[in-house]
């Protein structure tokens, strides 16, 4: 057979690249979704298995030991208290996976970003596409979590569905981690260190499984910094709130959005610089 025709395009380069310049980020998302097909089963099993196990362990198991009041609001069960925080943690887990290994995979181990960048796609579009993909993954994960929460009676339908939004914000708030990953040249176990010294303490001291106010005041600041605390409290407002003044809820949203936006922009800058050295 004869080879493919080449060089026949009569359209100007600027015209030819117009679609890529407009929709480039979505093409990146499309690529990521296609990659995901290979391990879709594992992802769905995790997304479904995690809430079932956690809600059973905490809401049914641990809850039997907790008879006292868990928060400032009387009448709230432990399951109701813990569920929005667990949902937010699940979103953070998904985001962290993509923001650490996902980013370094694309830049180094399976250097697809370099290939993308040889096309009209820019570093910024690559990052935008990844962020959209992470958002979609979090929506699916949180959506499944929410359905399981409903099944466990941890939430009533209605406004509580907005706890998914709180989860999304929690995940995005970790995007500075993606910016950090984009600067890693050599893997020397940075992600394991990050997991143990930052993420784990943030999870433990974020009012996830017990109210932050139970902690001595000198430890509470960890929670105030933690996106997970802000997201958990926000989620609780939607599930059984309001339990706090509205200005505090607004602070949660603003704080999470701010971290998310700063991290996103910073990541786009780092990826662009790295690809265009």
């Amino acid at each position, binding site marked *: 057979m004869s*080879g493919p025709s*080449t060089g026949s395009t009569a359209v100007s380069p600027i015209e030819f*690249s117009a*679609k*890529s310049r407009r929709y480039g980020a979505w093409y990146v998302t499309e690529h990521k979704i296609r990659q995901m097909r290979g391990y879709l089963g594992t992802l769905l099993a995790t997304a479904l298995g995690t809430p079932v196990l956690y809600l059973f362990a905490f809401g049914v198991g641990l809850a039997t030991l907790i008879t006292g009041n868990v928060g400032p609001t009387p009448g709230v069960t432990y399951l109701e208290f813990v569920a929005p925080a667990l949902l937010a943690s699940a979103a953070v887990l998904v985001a962290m996976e993509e923001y650490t290994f996902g980013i370094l995979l694309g830049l180094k181990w399976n250097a697809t970003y370099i290939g993308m960048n040889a096309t*009209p796609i820019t570093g910024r579009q690559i990052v935008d596409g990844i962020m959209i993909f992470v958002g979609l993954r979090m929506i699916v994960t949180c959506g499944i979590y929410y359905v399981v929460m409903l099944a466990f009676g941890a939430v009533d339908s209605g406004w509580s569905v907005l706890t998914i939004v709180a989860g999304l914000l929690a995940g995005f708030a970790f995007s500075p981690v993606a910016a950090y990953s984009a600067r890693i040249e050599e893997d020397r176990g940075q992600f394991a260190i990050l997991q143990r010294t930052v993420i784990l303490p943030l999870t433990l001291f974020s009012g996830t499984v017990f109210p932050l106010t139970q902690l001595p005041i000198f430890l509470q600041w960890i929670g105030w910094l933690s996106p997970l605390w802000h997201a958990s409290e926000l989620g609780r407002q939607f599930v059984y709130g309001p339990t706090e003044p509205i200005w505090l809820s607004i602070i949660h949203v603003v704080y999470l959005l701010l971290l998310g936006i700063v991290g996103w922009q910073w990541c786009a800058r780092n990826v662009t610089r790295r690809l265009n050295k």
Partner: protein
Amino acid sequence: MPTPVITATALTKKYKDFAAVDGIDFEVAPGESFGLLGPNGAGKSTTMRMVGAVSTRTSGDLTILGLDPNEHGPAIRSQLGVVPQADNLDTELRVRDNLLVYGRYFGLPRSQVASRADALLEFAQLADRAKAKVDDLSGGMKRRLTIARALINDPRILLLDEPTTGLDPQARHILWDRLFRLKEQGTTLVLTTHYMDEAEQLCDRLVVVDKGRIMAEGSPAALIREHSSREVLEVRFGSERNETAAAELAGIGERLEVLPDRILVYAASGEEALVEVVRRGLDPITSLVRRSSLEDVFLRLTGRSLVE
């Protein structure tokens, strides 16, 4: 020369104080097959990345398809096909999916990408591997898939950075054949290589680069004519006798080049040079007469061989 598709003037790329590309000038005409020949670290890949509109130049001018890559990176890249030095195929996708995903980046409709992908798999002789995992392909197959991927947007210029480095001889010949077909169809090829035979096979014209600078420019034949003799006699005397024998060879041919393991005698006629060597009573262990190659040109220009 018709309007060049690539024009570089005093093109420079510095990393801190180190000039990877140190003020080079060249032009590439449409349909031409242009090569950058030089050893590792000569600045070939850096030049390719600048031409590929992914690396920003430090100074000088660069125009690709009439556009400045600083201003119009995406537009330029939409018309290029890039085969990087290291394959960066997506190992998480199957062979054909690699082409589908890549085609989308150029904004091509799915149906068009699909039909082009099938044609390109035929061209790359990978049609029967469409559903294979990338990791299961041989080195030569991966290279051909990378080339097929680079052609998905019907590029006006195909950039190939060391296309056959690391491939076995058979895989190289298959690849050369594919590239030659593209050349016949009028695709502009720009390639870097440190293989003389590759440059001679594929390039209409080339520049010899070393330490970020252009040492010489011309067609392979012209470069050899200009910088070397027609033939070369290679004689070996064993590592111990090499130096002393060299002294006794003085005056034979146009020029001598003493390498650690052999002596090169540059002469119009290698046979006649050999007769003279024997007449002087020198008794080489082995002797070989061959035509001059680009390797000799490079040796002459830089005092070093290409592959060290």
